């Protein structure tokens, strides 16, 4: 293999890895069922620029008393939460450690237990779960706008959930109307 061919192979592999990141995300956004979750944003700064909003949902803290399966689960274990539509918003109805059978119309979202031994002691009966929809980047200073709307309890998120349970943020909603919509370009 010549040096130029080697360089081309490296460039192609790196490009494929980067394109793969985008493709995986777009697959979820384009094929996923759309649900709406209430959120409370907080805004620490991004590593680069723009405002980086951390999002918190009710399904980020699941009660062991309501979902006993959580008791036997460990940090970083995969967890599947079945969500059902309650009015405009969606709420958890069951939790499982494998992808569950579910009623038509319900949606299963995949998460990861995010509970170290220290956190377990601090949170008691509540088990923290991450779904990969806890961060959202907006242009500089717009995070503060969201912060203001948060205080008025107006912000919710439209989430796309694909057949595997992977989730992605499709749109940021204010009063159930889109403020930001995610597109490929």
């Amino acid at each position: 293999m010549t040096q130029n061919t080697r360089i081309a192979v490296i460039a192609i592999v790196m490009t494929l890895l980067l394109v793969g990141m985008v493709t995986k995300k777009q697959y979820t956004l384009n094929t996923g069922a759309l649900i709406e979750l209430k959120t409370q944003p907080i805004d620490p700064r991004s590593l680069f620029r723009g405002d980086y909003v951390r999002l918190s949902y009710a399904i980020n803290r699941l009660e062991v008393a309501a979902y006993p399966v959580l008791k036997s689960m460990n940090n970083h274990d995969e967890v599947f939460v079945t969500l059902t539509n309650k009015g405009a918003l969606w709420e958890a109805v069951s939790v499982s450690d494998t992808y569950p059978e579910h009623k038509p119309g319900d949606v299963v979202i995949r998460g990861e237990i995010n509970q170290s031994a220290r956190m377990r002691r601090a949170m008691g009966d509540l088990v923290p779960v991450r779904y990969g929809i806890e961060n959202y980047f907006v242009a500089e200073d717009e995070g503060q706008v969201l912060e203001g709307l948060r205080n008025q309890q107006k912000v919710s998120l439209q989430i796309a959930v694909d057949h595997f349970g992977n989730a992605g943020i499709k749109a940021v909603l204010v009063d159930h109307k889109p403020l930001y919509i995610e597109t490929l370009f």
Partner: protein
Amino acid sequence: MIQIAIVVLVIMALGGFSTRRSFTKRLKKEMPSWIEQGWVQQENAQQIIDSTGSQSKHSASTAFSILGVLLFAVGVISFIASNWGEISKLGKLLILFGVMWGAFAGASWCRNQSHITWLAESALLLAVMMFGANIMLIAQIYHIDAHYPNGVMIWSFGALLTSWMMKSRVLFVVSMMLTTLWTGMESFGFQTFHWPFLIVIALHAWLMVINKWKVMAHLLMISFLLWSLFCISSFGWWDEKLHLVYLVQSYLLFYLLLFLSGMHLVLEKGYEYYGELIKKYAALASLSAFYVLTVPQFLESRSWGSGGNVFRNPADQIWIWVTAIFLILLAISALWHRSKTKEGRIRKPYHTWGLLLLSGLLGCIVINLFSFGEAGGAAAIAFNLLFFASLLWLIYFGMHEGNRQLVNLSFVFFAITLLNRYFDTFWELLDRSLFFMAGGILVVGLGIVLERKRRSLMVDLGSDTGGAA
């Protein structure tokens, strides 16, 4: 992290430049005598000097071009960052991919130009830096909120792939640093025992050996020892502080096993350099862990629990199992080394003394597993005696194996421990002013005696190995 990477890379490049320059100077000085001896032909002498001289110029150019590409990469990221709102998603992607592909194209072009071949390395570095920037910025553009250390892992994979395919030492360094960062993030951020690091470091070791990048072994060992320390966060020691003594004991056994691995490797043809290096780093790590075990207060491990001032309890079953596994591995390794040195008739008396010393230490560690903290004082006396005996053995071992770093290391630990014991013993017993005066005299005296002894040993070592002291 980026700043540290820049500083390390530039220092390494400038270090290489300075070493090569001094090598050229030495060549110029020595060449006439080599010609006189008939070792080098007159007509070849100038060609040899010119060749190393031109490499030296390229090293300086490489150092500055590395600095240049790093600044350029930071500039591209800053440009996108400061125009985040104004540039569309497509625009950002075109810039990011464009710069990465441009760097690859530049590397390819430079490789084909005989006068700037050296610039290809910097262009490849730029491409890899842009790959990392692309991972982070694409994650930001598309709100990809995955397991965050994975981004660094993919970046490190890209650097390793480039290093492997293009035989690039600079990118090997980058890849090692990223791998260490990755394992640090996994260990501290998620408190998991990060075993995948071992696979990645094995790949690096393989790459290093096939390319004969011997000096990179230092980086590998530093990274490995850092990983071993990072692992502490996954053991949850803060939950059960009383188990810290047994954790340190286990670390000592692990590092001793590493030292023995170095001794094995020294016996393998072609791997002697790596064996010696592993021994040096493992000795440093072992002595550090052993030193902690010489502190009486640590061995007592008092804590203010619900029952008041309480000592540590004997070890739980988990620590007994961990110790047993290490003991078996150490015994197998030591006996295997013994049989290998017997076959080649290269076994020295100090190998047997080392084995006896190791047996004594292992015995002490086992007894300590079943002791209460009240026996910490007695355990400390035993560990101190063994520690000083080990230092003497290591000095002897280093002398006979021609390993001066081991001798120096032993002297440093000897001085530190002696001073520490002086503080432990006389802090309460002596009047403060007397304590400090006597301490001052002890430090000065110890410095003179140990340095004199060390120098005389170095001279002996130099005459034995034919090197300079």
